[in-house]
């Protein structure tokens, strides 16, 4: 049995004060094509074991791969969205290694000729004082195929250690995978874990907007390997560790943070960081070493003789470029300018995870200011208290549209509207039901208002005199008194109008 040794950790702030982290991220995206990369088997998630297989993806002797056209197009579109150069001629290669989840005992991948190279993604990283944009450079985007799924059986835990044997389901084998590899990301300092998280998050948004993948980290359709190394300021690059299969956004941040603290401890002790693969433990946020290898695996890459080269002619690439939707960054820029709001306000909307809701609410006819006010105010607070996402609250865009209608028709004011939302959140029904149930309708009967106005006029002769001398701004005192008398259920605008009618300026 292996006993787990928890290494010493350096407090994070100390670690990044003494060492400069350099990041590298490798993300695998499972494409959402109907069929697999090299055969016609379906790609649905969760099908019964070994029911989505054929001679090709089981690697039966004699079977041959044929490339899925949509997978190539999706990869080119991903490359374009990441500002890459699409390589005009590229090939598939075989990566040879034996493993029971890899039916051919080689993976068809791309090696020295990836389809897209040299791109970047501008990542907006939230910081304590606003937003910092970090350009993460992309080294390559290449196509490959997924492996089958292993279940480790026997033994005590169902984990690989101590298992007596394993069971293999090849449904996933051959599903198209696209690997996106960054260049090293230097100079992020203490922000490194946040940069890693923001990169994966924004990459995910990008893939989703392209419609190439459902990018569900919990189902493994987006998987991340997070690499980091430390070096003293102005020193040469350190040795990196590669933490494999970090499969949630939060885990990316945690894994990087842990590795920075661990490596700092190693360096502080005057030792060398080992170049190794590490596994991330969700439970405690730590990483642990994988099997250490005496030498680098020799994958014996060579051009896949069963497949022909891919030629991405410029006309084809341009056709594909024309199919790109507005990408998240451009989309955000456009909305910001349409709404005419500051960078800070825009980032607040993004940070609150409210962008999509605000956008949809505006699209439903509500002003951007009102949409932001509701989603970012009461509702954001409520979501935060409940520990849920905004979209999980019982308040819908339709509710906001109705409340705004009631406000503009004079049936509600802001104060009452808040109470309406309170009611909706409490499950008292839709806006109209809450208004009726809580009797929140504004007093719209002029007679009742005039009675209250007359009473106020009688009580405040000095104010009346000011108004009559032309100082209309003095009307506020009387309006306030009327609102108080009607318990807030009066339309302040109407009260003002009636009051000014009652007391026309003299002279």
């Amino acid at each position, binding site marked *: 049995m292996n006993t787990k040794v928890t290494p010493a950790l350096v407090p994070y702030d100390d670690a990044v004060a003494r060492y400069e982290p350099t990041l590298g991220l490798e993300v695998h995206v499972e494409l959402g094509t109907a069929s697999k990369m090299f*055969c016609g088997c379906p790609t649905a998630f969760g099908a019964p*074991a070994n029911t989505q297989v054929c001679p090709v993806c089981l690697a039966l002797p004699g079977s041959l791969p044929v490339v899925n056209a949509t997978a190539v197009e999706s990869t080119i579109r991903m490359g374009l969205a990441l500002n890459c150069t699409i390589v005009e001629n590229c090939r598939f290669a075989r990566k040879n290694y034996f493993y029971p989840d890899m039916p051919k005992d080689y993976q068809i991948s791309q090696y020295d000729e990836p389809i897209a190279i040299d791109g970047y993604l501008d990542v907006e990283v939230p910081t304590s004082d606003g937003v910092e944009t970090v350009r993460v450079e992309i080294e390559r985007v290449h196509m490959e195929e997924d492996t089958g799924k292993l279940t480790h059986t026997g033994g005590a835990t169902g984990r690989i250690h101590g298992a007596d044997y394993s069971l293999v389901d090849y449904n996933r084998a051959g599903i198209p995978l696209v690997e996106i590899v960054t260049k090293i990301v230097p100079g992020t300092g203490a922000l490194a874990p946040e940069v890693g998280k923001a990169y994966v998050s924004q990459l995910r948004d990008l893939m989703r907007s392209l419609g190439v993948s459902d990018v569900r980290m919990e189902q493994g359709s987006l998987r991340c390997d997070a690499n980091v190394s430390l070096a003293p300021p102005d020193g040469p690059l350190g040795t990196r560790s590669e933490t494999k299969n970090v499969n949630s956004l939060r885990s990316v941040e945690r894994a990087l943070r842990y590795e920075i603290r661990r490596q700092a401890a190693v360096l502080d002790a005057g030792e060398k960081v080992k170049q190794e693969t590490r596994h991330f433990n969700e439970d405690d946020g730590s990483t642990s070493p994988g099997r250490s290898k005496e030498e680098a695996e020799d994958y014996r890459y060579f051009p896949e003789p069963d497949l*022909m080269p*891919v030629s991405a002619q410029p006309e084809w690439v341009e056709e594909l470029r024309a199919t790109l939707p507005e990408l998240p960054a451009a989309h955000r820029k456009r909305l910001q300018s349409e709404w005419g709001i500051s960078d800070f306000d825009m980032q607040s909307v993004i940070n609150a995870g409210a962008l999509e809701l605000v956008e949809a609410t505006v699209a439903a006819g509500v002003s951007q200011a009102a949409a932001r006010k509701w989603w970012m105010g009461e509702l954001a607070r409520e979501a935060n208290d409940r520990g849920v996402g905004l979209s999980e609250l019982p308040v819908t865009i339709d509710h906001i549209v109705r409340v705004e209608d009631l406000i503009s028709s004079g049936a509600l004011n802001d104060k009452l509207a808040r109470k309406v939302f309170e009611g909706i959140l409490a499950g008292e029904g839709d806006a109209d039901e809450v208004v009726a149930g809580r009797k929140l309708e504004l007093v719209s009967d002029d007679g009742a208002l005039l009675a209250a106005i007359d009473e106020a006029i009688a009580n405040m002769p000095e104010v009346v005199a000011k108004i009559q001398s032309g100082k209309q701004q003095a009307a506020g005192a009387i309006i306030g008194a009327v609102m108080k008398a009607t318990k807030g259920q009066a339309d302040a605008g109407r009260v003002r109008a009636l009051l000014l009618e009652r007391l026309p300026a003299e002279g």
Partner: protein
Amino acid sequence: MADLTREQVAHLAQLARLDLSPDELDHYNEQLNVILAAVAQVGEVAARDVPATSHPIVMTNVFRPDEVRPGLSREDALSGAPAAQDDRFRVPRILEEEPS
């Protein structure tokens, strides 16, 4: 070109997943060196500016449409399995996860 050592041959056998006996290692060591000496003649050709040919007849963009086609029934899929359990291929224990 230097001859292959016995250690190199053993490493190759490990890479190729061949559990060669010590006698076989010696035997292949000798034979591989003879064969390699013969095929090394390809190195005599001055071919620095010659492109490599990986396919005898090259075509490009040979793709299939992204359409689902019928595959194998599970019975057929598992029909050749040396061991199967719970509709899956049963394989001996795995030492540790290989990085992929």
